[in-house]
């Protein structure tokens, strides 16, 4: 028979072994580029395009070197072990059931950590931010208890250890340190502390305890640099947008520096995780309510509230999601424009839900979490489009794929699957001047449309869709004087900046009822594809309607069908074409 002391040790070894087995199999969802003259690296999340400065915390890096021979991702493994220790302490505090089954405590802790991978993938930013958080919560909890009992002055070592943990947490979390510290305080206060019989805490005592996690967090927030943005011009954008908010922005000015987080991709990536977490949290809430277990309620309430918040962030339409709490908080907090607080929240809720589930359902999550991590967290299902390409990419493409322009590349790949191999051609074409169709003795028509003569707003006059707005199906026909090779087309709305086409399908061929063949289809217009000095693609303003063809087309007529819907007209003041082949 096994000695009782060996059981936890064996359990710990098995849990670490499980992590050791699973973690190397998970493809990272991010890529790193060293920043010159700095210990920081620019981290780009391939799922949602977050782009920010990042570095491993010192302890993890040092220990990681020692572990490097033992495990493939040593720093990640070490962070998971730290997270496991904190989670174990939390589980001992919150779960009476697991308290009676110490052999399950370590596996349950490992499962909680693995659930983070299941929810957000192998995300160094999220794991780094959450690794020390459970331990920090327990430290705050211990300090609160000591202070309430009037023992604050007598537990000096505890203060020192708590400060050390807090500094480590802040260093590891970097830009996320402030929300993590606040989250740790809230968790300690609401989920760990038992309400009944608490001695009151004076305001100054509360402030003193709060200072332990908050001061290092504020320091880390201030000390973390911004990842330098490439040389995009002021009106560039790299994440897809609808362009509908342009009229407001043109009046009030740009609200944020260049946004890098692709919210659409984030919603798509985290949608399934959010759904699963919401379902789990709901089931947990029901189970606990039926069983009447009051001691687990705070944990499950926190998990449920968290699941609702991340669901609001992921499932609501864009304009509403931006007013949901997580997006609002990310706008309030520093770095909110470049760091994905959504992924952090999804990871935290996954951890919370699994901790709560382990307390209530014991064995089920222990089996489910590693499986989910392996399946959901693997690139096979998560399918970050750029991950595979990045692995074999040439240096000039890695340069693009590890920059905020990755979102542009991702979108362009859906339009032209050979975009990355043709990127040089696109870059060359984007610099070419186009030729006015009128000067080439060509013409253009827009159906349905009405002609507006020259006016103070439009000195050339314009064609505009007369039915008011764009409903899909409007057709611009550009007739060239003779058949020629065309590599692009520019359709200028003139000064009417809101009157650009929302979606486009371009075809080319003979005029009249002759054969036409599709050239390019752009479901949501983003602006002209341009390149920075260093060759990074970006989109210019939406009204800059310049379409580059994937390949030159021999055509006498070009047909541009508008496929989107909006209340704004489609105005065409001038049409140009890019003649010849590059």
């Amino acid at each position, binding site marked *: 028979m096994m000695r009782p002391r060996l059981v936890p040790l064996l359990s710990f070894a098995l849990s670490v072994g499980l992590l050791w087995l699973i973690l190397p199999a998970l493809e990272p969802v991010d890529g790193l580029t060293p920043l010159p003259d700095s210990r920081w690296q620019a981290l780009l999340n391939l799922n949602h395009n977050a782009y920010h400065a990042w570095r491993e915390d010192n302890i993890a890096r040092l220990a990681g070197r020692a572990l490097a021979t033992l495990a493939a991702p040593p720093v990640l493994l070490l962070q998971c072990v730290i997270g496991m220790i904190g989670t174990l302490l939390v589980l001992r505090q919150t779960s009476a059931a697991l308290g009676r089954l110490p052999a399950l405590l370590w596996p349950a802790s490992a499962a909680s950590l693995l659930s983070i991978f299941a929810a957000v993938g192998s995300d160094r930013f999220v794991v780094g931010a959450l690794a020390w958080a459970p331990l920090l919560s327990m430290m705050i909890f211990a300090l609160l208890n000591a202070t309430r009992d009037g023992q604050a002055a007598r537990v000096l070592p505890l203060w020192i250890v708590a400060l050390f943990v807090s500094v480590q947490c802040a260093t590891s979390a970097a830009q996320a340190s402030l929300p993590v510290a606040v989250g740790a305080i809230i968790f300690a206060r609401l989920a760990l502390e038992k309400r009944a019989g608490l001695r009151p805490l004076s*305001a100054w005592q509360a*402030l003193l305890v709060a200072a332990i996690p908050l001061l290092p967090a504020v320091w880390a927030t*201030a000390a973390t640099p911004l990842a330098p943005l490439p040389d995009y011009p002021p009106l560039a954008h790299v994440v897809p947008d609808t362009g509908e*908010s342009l009229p*407001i922005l043109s*009046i*009030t*000015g*740009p*609200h*944020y520096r260049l946004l890098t987080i692709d919210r659409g991709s984030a919603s798509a990536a985290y949608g399934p995780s959010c759904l699963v977490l919401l379902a789990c949290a709901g089931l947990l809430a029901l189970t606990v309510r039926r069983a009447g277990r009051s001691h687990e309620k705070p944990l499950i309430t926190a998990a449920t509230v968290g699941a609702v918040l991340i669901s609001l962030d992921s499932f609501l339409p864009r*304009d509403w999601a*931006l*007013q*949901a*709490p997580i*997006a*609002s*908080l990310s*706008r*309030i907090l520093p770095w909110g424009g470049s760091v994905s607080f959504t992924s952090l929240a999804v990871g935290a809720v996954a951890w919370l839900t699994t901790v709560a589930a382990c307390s209530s359902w014991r064995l089920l999550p222990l089996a489910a979490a590693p499986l989910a991590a392996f399946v959901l967290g693997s690139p096979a299902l998560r399918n970050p489009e750029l991950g595979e390409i990045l692995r074999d990419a040439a240096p000039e493409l890695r340069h693009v794929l590890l920059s905020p322009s990755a979102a542009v590349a991702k979108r362009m790949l859906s339009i032209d699957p050979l975009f990355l191999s043709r990127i040089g051609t696109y870059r060359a074409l984007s610099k070419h001047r186009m030729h006015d169709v009128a000067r080439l003795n060509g013409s253009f028509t827009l159906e349905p449309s009405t002609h507006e003569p020259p006016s103070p707003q439009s000195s050339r006059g314009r064609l505009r869709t007369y039915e008011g707005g764009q409903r899909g199906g409007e057709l611009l026909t550009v007739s060239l004087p003779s058949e020629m090779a065309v590599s692009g087309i520019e359709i200028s709305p003139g000064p009417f900046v809101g009157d650009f086409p929302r979606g486009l399908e371009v075809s080319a061929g003979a005029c009249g009822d002759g054969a036409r063949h599709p050239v390019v289809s752009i479901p949501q217009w983003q602006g002209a594809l341009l390149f920075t000095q260093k060759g990074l693609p970006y989109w210019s303003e939406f009204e800059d309607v310049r379409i580059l063809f994937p390949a030159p087309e021999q055509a006498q007529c070009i047909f541009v069908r508008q496929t989107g819907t909006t*209340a704004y007209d489609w105005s065409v003041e001038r049409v140009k074409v890019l003649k010849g082949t590059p």
Partner: protein
Amino acid sequence: MPVAASAALLILVLGLTGGSWHPWAPHIPAIIPAGRFPIAVGLAMLTISAAWSLVRHGRMPTAAELSHPVVWSSGLVALFLSDWLLRPWGFFPDPFIRGQLVVAAAIFAWMLSTRWHFILPAWLVVSLCALIWTFFAASGGELLVSDDHAMFLFRLKLLKENFPLIPFWSPLWNAGFDARDFFATGALNAFLIASPIVYLFEIERSYNAIVSLLLWGVVPGASYLACRMSGGSRAASAAAGALSISVSLIWYRWALKYGTIGFITSAGLFPLAVALWNRFLESASPRWRDCIFTAIVSTLMFLWSPSTLALAPMGLFGVLCLPRIIRSPRHIITLALIVALNLPWVAIMWKVSNVGSFLNAEGSGAPSAQQAGGAPEASQRPEPLADAARGWTQDFRHKTGSLNIRRAMRELHTQASAMNPLLLVFGIPALLMLSPRRRAVYGLLVGWLVALGTLGVSIKPQLELDRMGLMAGTALATPVALFLAGLFSAAGASRWLRGAAIVSGAFLLASPLAASSVVANQSSERYRFQNEEMRTVTRILAERTGAGRGFFTGCVLHEMSGGHLAPMALWANAPLVASSYAHNIWQYQQPVPKSFLDRGNAGVLEYLDLMNASVVLAHEPTWISFCNSLKDDFEMIHRDETFAVYSRPRFKPNFALEGSLSGLSMATNSVTFTPESERVVLKFRHFPFLASSQCALRPIQVAPEVALIELSGCSVGEPVTITSVSPLERLLSPRGGSR
């Protein structure tokens, strides 16, 4: 019915200030097409509720009935649900601000269940730190030079060297100018407050810190103290402080974009001055501490002279208290102290600044560098300068007007949209909840300021009285904070009150966040920091002017980093000439006078010689073409984003037009040189208050618009210093006035 009276007033306020109302977003069709409809409804409801009260109780509705907090806070809900929050010039610049308000409501609901008394002051401290941090982060280590900030920085540098001997003559700009706008612009109040920093540190290195100190130290500090003096708790005072830093988007326009630091300091001190004057007038024998404090704060405020207009209603209450005042030695001594502190600078300002002509001017009567240089007929102008014809007649602002209700209403709507909704919605109930005496004081003050800020704008636009609307906002911070604190304290009494408190608290918590968006340059009010072009041009001026001047052609206002040119003369250590180095012209104006322009290229070149211009800067296409066309006279040495810089290879710089001199050196307030002839005509403009240390000094008219300094009877080889006479002499002497 008590609720109806409050609702009627609320509808009236929203109708008066809101215009048309759209639900949720501006693109959704309006549910209230014009402000007159809610005004009519409000008036009708007010009449009915008053009649009902008269019939039922035999009295008019009481102040408590008219200021029901739940009803008034529903005004905030109305703003939340309407397009108000998305209006282009609104205080909340984020189109998704509703999300932050919801988060703030959740946080405030938690705060109400715990120690909100303790958390609110902490929130103020955190907000101030965050604002200062945001400001420095937005600056990226660059110097704030937006609009008048550059000028204010210049004034600080001049004051550091010359205070208290102001006004004085300075040779740094436009061949000499009368440095006297310290009085009119209120620069002295900020200078005095920031003087420890000014004297201890280099101004360029500390200027951003000085601005932060004033905006997020002095202003909230004054409101905090004002609220404490008005009987507010620490939490209420913290709310007042938070409101004072988030009065309006227009506040930050004047503070950060326009850089009117004198006004901002004065407006920030205004609530404290009101509280002090209240205490001073109410008390039969005020404490000495209060007396001295009143005198100092009032003086600092009055240093931006229009603030005396703002505080005028207090004079009315002073008259009512006159019997008590004349019996109290402390009152009399304090008033005498205020007069003694203010009379000298007021007298000098009146004498040297042409205040009377400014008040009666068609536009701004502020003097400019090139006083008589009007716009010549296009046909008289040399090619290619004739192309500038369109610019000559361009007005910038400040056309005189008459009482115009429509314009006043438009001004009211603009100011109300930009104002913090808490001040707008709770302004009236907060005033009603004050004690009757305070209600009268604050009511009269706020009413007076609103009238000045709306009606006054159309009558005297040159006074820029729209700023009085902001002063009304700062004055309201104290009563509104007291009202909010009362509401938060009463939140436990009912679910409705708790809801009202949460809604109000959410707006209160979100206000500094909205301010931080503005400070982070993420609003429609963008402000500017020094850019590379300004540094480069300054460096070139320092290197290339030699013994001459730098000459800015065309009309320059904000072309350099969005600020005025003023400090460049100090940074380049070179005298400069421009149509205006500060914002003291209100029409397009050339630096070259008409009589020279009329003579074509030769006239322009002659004027450049007369101004001893060794380096010429051009930013207008006309002037760039002009310089490019005369290749022998101008050699382009640098081309930047806005400015092209030319040297004059054929010109040998010399500050003596006639006679000769050597070793000329300039300080901020004097010129020193050694004459090498008995008579010297200097290329410096003559002012009647100039004095020479050894020669006879008189004007010599070299052109209809240009009078230079002629020195005669000089001892050859003996250094001469030209400086202005002392301020006292200027005050007493008939020649002391400005030209």
